[in-house]
């Protein structure tokens, strides 16, 4: 690290080898102390959430907050590089438009309402059970079918394998067959 300047004042520092005051002499204390904010951050290894190239990412965390996401140079696929979307991953997760609360619109309602998460989960479970019962198909052309005609789902291509697995498993158990994702679109 840089040797401590002998004089505190920039004007005096100019006497010390930087007579024109364009180099060491004009560095502010802040500049002298300025270094990458990631140096003392925790590094968490991750993967880019956008396209399917699968670029390695390093997430830098300080005080339980993400302060930077950049490429993982150890990745054999991406070699530390990222595209503009990948480079904006931190901004994605901290977007000014991100929502952190459940929003509820009642039938024929004209505005969003608040709804506690627990209550929302309960209501969704009730609706699944009800629609399952009401649209249950026991057989089709004389053959047993046992599926739900009235519930469908779209989603999965941006989700984790483990999530897709639980979705498919639960939907199958409920008899929901209209399960689709972006791979088709």
């Amino acid at each position, binding site marked *: 690290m840089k040797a401590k300047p002998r004089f505190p004042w920039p004007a005096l520092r100019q006497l010390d*080898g930087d007579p024109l005051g364009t*180099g060491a002499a004009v*560095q502010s204390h802040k500049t002298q102390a300025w270094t*990458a904010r990631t*140096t003392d951050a925790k590094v968490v290894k991750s993967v880019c959430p956008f396209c399917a190239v699968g670029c390695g990412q390093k997430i830098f965390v300080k005080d339980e907050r993400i302060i930077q996401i950049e490429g993982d140079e150890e990745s054999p696929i991406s070699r530390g590089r990222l595209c503009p979307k990948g*480079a904006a991953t931190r901004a994605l997760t901290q977007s000014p438009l991100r929502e952190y609360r459940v929003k509820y619109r009642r039938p024929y309602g004209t505005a969003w309402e608040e709804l506690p998460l627990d209550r929302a989960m309960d209501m969704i479970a009730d609706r699944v059970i009800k629609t399952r019962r009401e649209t249950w198909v026991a057989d089709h052309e004389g053959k047993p079918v046992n599926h739900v005609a009235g519930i469908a789902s779209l989603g999965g291509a941006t989700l984790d394998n483990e999530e897709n697995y639980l979705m498919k498993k639960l939907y199958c158990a409920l008899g929901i067959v209209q399960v689709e994702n972006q791979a088709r679109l």
Partner: protein
Amino acid sequence: MSTFIDLTGAAAQSATYGADEQQRMGFFTDTTLCIGCKACEVACKEWNELPEDGYEFTGWSYDNTRELNGNTWRHVTFVEQFSGRSAGTGRWLMESDVCKHCTHAGCLDVCPTGAIMRSEFGTVVIQQDVCNGCGYCIVGCPFGVIGLKEAEGTTGKCTLCYDRLKAGEEPACAKACPTDSIQFGAVDELRERAEKRLEAVQGRFDGAQLYGTDTGDGVGGTGSMFLLLDKPEVYGLPPDPIVPTKDLPQMWRAAGVGAALLVAACVAAAVRA
């Protein structure tokens, strides 16, 4: 050259750091490898925590950020060369522009507050805590790189990720660049690499030429060099950039001579009296 000029060059300024002086670092941006993805623009904004610069469709090909300025420190220029005719015969040139980190930096010369400094890496950095936004540097830059940061009341431009360099990291744009169009390294080594690359692509790319590698040019060569595929002005780069303070030493010398004559005249007058 005079002693004075020697004092303002990148080498002399870095030397003020004494034992802390580092190799002069810079960029070589090879546009034969650029795919115009703008990862550099975003990676730069992410690292340097720069805000967006307006949501406006320009119609300038795929360029909607227009220019380098206080909040856009990497900027990709797009040039469509189709002469109104069919695809397949034309070219689409892309170039990621950035501060040149000149050997003789106009911005640094004219900064009245000492906000702009030559770092130990030979790069030119605006210290945000010192800058008062007077804007002299904006007109002092022959490349039009610097702009106001209105929210902060300062000016801004590429620092070559001074903070990352101090931590042994490469600049954010060079790290992100998917195709290695932006290369980071020691300026001497990059200049050599640029020359070799030019030689290698002769015949493969029409109009290939280097920009910023000539140490005899009006800014003494730049720390950010480019391999272009057409004349610099096609990319909006000045073909013959000259540091506005180039004649400053002569002016100082002339002023010095004038002052000496004046003193001599006064002395002579006094003696006569």
